[in-house]
């Protein structure tokens, strides 16, 4: 069974539930044995009317699955994640540039050291713009640049979190459809008709706190990212599993509806975590923007006459 066939399975569930409902409606009626389930068809002269009547009870099933069938394709997040990953590679100073969720260490972009190298050349210049550039660009470069790296990490990990939700969603909804069909297939087997439904969406994200370099004003950034198991495609045992049961097609479909509803709640709950992470990063940026941005350098756009005067580079000692 694959996710691409989800709507086919939804229609199969509707059809199978309808057939079983007709079969069970004929049980215990006088001497006549109920029909076999494959005898019940919409075009059957004997059971067609019953089929139409019971089908109305289950007509909502495909509608229930439709939003899931058109939910985001996780693969479409991959190029976006690569784009943001390129940003991180460009802005990496090496030491400390680690993906907090995977532990991946970004190699240093050695060209960034050219900013440090600029320091000595400007060291002796005493004009105001020269001093301004040293104090606001060169000296705090590593800490502000590191905080910008952190913002890019927030962008990447939230994309990965969103991707993880849809990977897990597709797995879970496919599993619900599969187990519902199995439950309907086993409608008349001996013993209780029960099945366990695992909700991996509920376990697909993980959180951590990242601390920006700061002068003490910044808040820690709460980051949310994909749990490690999502990439490995092996859900953890900690993912919640709920046992469902149903001895009639109506009960099976009710259990299925509960499971679909639970899955929808889990998705919304996890996406709320991503929204909170993004909102917190925006708040941090608006409240402590100086920790993340360089001010306009006074050197920028100055005319030559000003550049060589006391408000420019001044003289060199």
């Amino acid at each position, binding site marked *: 069974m694959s996710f691409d066939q989800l709507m086919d399975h939804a229609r199969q569930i509707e059809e199978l539930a309808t057939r079983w409902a007709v079969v069970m409606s004929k049980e215990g009626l006088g001497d006549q044995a109920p029909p076999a389930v494959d005898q019940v068809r919409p075009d059957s002269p004997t059971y067609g009317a019953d089929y139409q009547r019971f089908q109305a009870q289950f007509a909502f099933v495909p509608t229930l699955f439709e*939003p899931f069938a*058109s*939910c*985001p394709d996780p693969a*479409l*997040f991959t*190029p*976006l994640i690569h*784009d*943001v990953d*390129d*940003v991180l590679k*460009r802005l990496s100073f090496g030491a400390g540039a680690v993906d907090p969720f995977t532990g991946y260490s970004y190699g240093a972009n050695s*060209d*960034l050291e*050219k*900013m440090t*190298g*600029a320091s000595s*050349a400007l060291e*002796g*210049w*005493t*004009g*105001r*713009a020269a001093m301004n*550039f040293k104090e606001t*660009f060169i000296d705090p470069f590593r800490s502000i640049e590191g905080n*910008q790296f952190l*913002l*890019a990490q*927030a*962008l990447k990990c939230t*994309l990965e979190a*969103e991707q993880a939700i*849809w990977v897990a969603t597709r797995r879970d909804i496919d599993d619900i459809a599969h187990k519902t069909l199995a439950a309907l297939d086993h409608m008349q087997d001996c013993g209780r008709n029960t099945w366990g439904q695992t909700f991996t969406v509920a376990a697909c994200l993980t959180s951590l706190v990242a601390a920006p370099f700061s002068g003490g004003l910044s808040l820690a950034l709460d980051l949310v990212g994909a749990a490690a198991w999502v990439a490995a495609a092996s859900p953890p045992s900690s993912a919640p599993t709920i046992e469902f049961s149903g001895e009639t097609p109506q009960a099976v479909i009710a259990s299925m509806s509960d499971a679909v509803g639970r899955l929808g709640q889990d998705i*919304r709950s996890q*996406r*709320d975590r991503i*929204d909170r992470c*993004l*909102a917190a990063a*925006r708040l941090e*940026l608006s409240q402590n923007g100086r920790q*993340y*941005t*360089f001010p*306009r*350098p006074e050197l*920028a*756009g100055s005319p*030559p006459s000003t*550049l*060589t*005067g*006391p408000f420019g*580079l*001044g*003289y*060199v000692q």
Partner: protein
Amino acid sequence: MLSGGGRVSTGTRPGRSGTGFGADLYKLWRVGRDNLPTVAAIYAQACNDLAATQSGLPAAFAGSAPFGGADTLQAWADLRDAVQGILADTATGLELAGEALCTAADAYARADAQAAAEYRRLVRDDGSVPEISVPAPVRPGGWTPQWGQR
């Protein structure tokens, strides 16, 4: 912070002069020609990497609306725009500062013949500093730059 009693003007300063000053100007030029544009280019490319996400963003989030998240796409795009704008402004600031240093080095040299000779000799002998091409950083729509766009 400024010593020298504000007397500083092109070529007549209480600081260094002559050949040593020419070496100082060369260092200034080198930072303006190489160091700052190199870092500016990193920022511009990083900015444009973020800008590139825009084309695939709506398709990636298509179909997510029924599943809550107040508006995760918009929230992500808002933070992306903020970071992209910061990177663009940083790139522009570094590039403009680099141009200013080169301009200043030339201006100082015009007022000190001995310094100018040494400065030009060092620049001429240093053939290893190609002009760094800084890509134009793509600013997000509606972003107000801290300073003029290039």
